[in-house]
């Protein structure tokens, strides 16, 4: 029976999706809803993995969902931290500036107390690489990635009674 495909590549794809969602301004607001972007990365890792499962291979199992979700979260934390640092060093806190712009154009900043407004502006301008936030990412991403992997398995799990199909017979040799 052919072995299951490697989990590393689907997990890297899932991690890359997590990192991109977290890095792209506006899109990263998705993570404000219980880290939905991170969970989506874990879910996508399971999606890519089940796409790789060919006929004759063992079926998708719950342990695959656990491992893929955790791995995707780990890769998401690594890639996300690298991407965040690059963006911060090259173009600065784009997300913060955009958010400030939105608040300013909608008139919210005019209603804010001057102290709070100044504090917010200073926070955006002085944004630098934060090791604590990197450390937190390495806890939160695998945790929510795991949730995404579990949700992914519950969606793509084989139907009850499904059995591993026999491997396809080798193709007949072409007549020369």
């Amino acid at each position, binding site marked *: 029976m052919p072995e299951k495909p490697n989990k590393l590549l689907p997990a890297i794809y899932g991690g890359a999706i997590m990192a991109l969602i977290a890095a792209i301004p506006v899109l990263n*607001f998705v*993570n*404000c*809803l*219980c*880290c939905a972007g991170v969970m989506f990365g874990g879910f996508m890792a399971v999606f890519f993995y089940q796409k790789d499962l060919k006929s004759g291979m063992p079926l998708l*199992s*719950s*342990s*695959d*969902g*656990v*491992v893929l979700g955790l791995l995707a979260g780990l890769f998401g934390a690594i890639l996300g931290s690298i991407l965040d640092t690059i963006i911060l060093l090259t173009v600065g806190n784009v997300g913060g500036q955009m958010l400030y712009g939105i608040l300013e154009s909608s008139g919210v900043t005019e209603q804010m107390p001057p102290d709070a407004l100044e504090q917010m502006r200073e926070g955006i301008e002085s944004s630098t690489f934060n090791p*604590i*936030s990197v450390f*937190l*990412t390495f806890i*939160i991403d695998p945790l929510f990635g*795991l*949730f995404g992997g*579990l*949700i992914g*398995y*519950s*969606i793509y*799990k084989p139907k009850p009674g499904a059995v591993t199909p026999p491997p396809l017979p080798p193709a007949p040799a072409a007549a020369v």
Partner: protein
Amino acid sequence: MESRRITYLITLAGSALWCLAIISAPLCASHGGALKTCGDVLYEFFRPVCHQMAGRSLMIAGEPLAVCSRCSAVYFSFLLGTLLFPLAQKAWRRLPEGRTLLLLALLPMLLDVFASVLGIHDATETTRLLTGAWLGVLLPFVVLPVAMDGFTALRVRFSRSHPHFQKGNRNA
């Protein structure tokens, strides 16, 4: 102890700790000195998880919870769902599994969010809390069975590939 039970207890303890941290942040921040610092650390911990807008958060001791009201509803009802899981497991087995249950859990929140974004209706504190609580209480019934099966399978695989580790444990 059976590994399915261990997975359940870890999930229960983890979600209880998570909820405790959400409540502790405002309670600590409302005090001075070291407790205030502790509160600030807790707020910082939850910063990547939620927007933490004070206007959309529930208040304790004059300070907002560490996450917004929608997220609070999800996490606290997830804890409630995890507590109910062993009691309600038989009844819930009759309900649809996997994707259908997840869709049922997500639908009210998605409708609330998208209707609010499109300007069809204004999401209120009540709708945020209700839709969040609905998702949170159903979510353990989607993820817990998978987590318990998955970690049990991983443990079996690990003890097969590392028989010495298991033997050493028995001797200890």
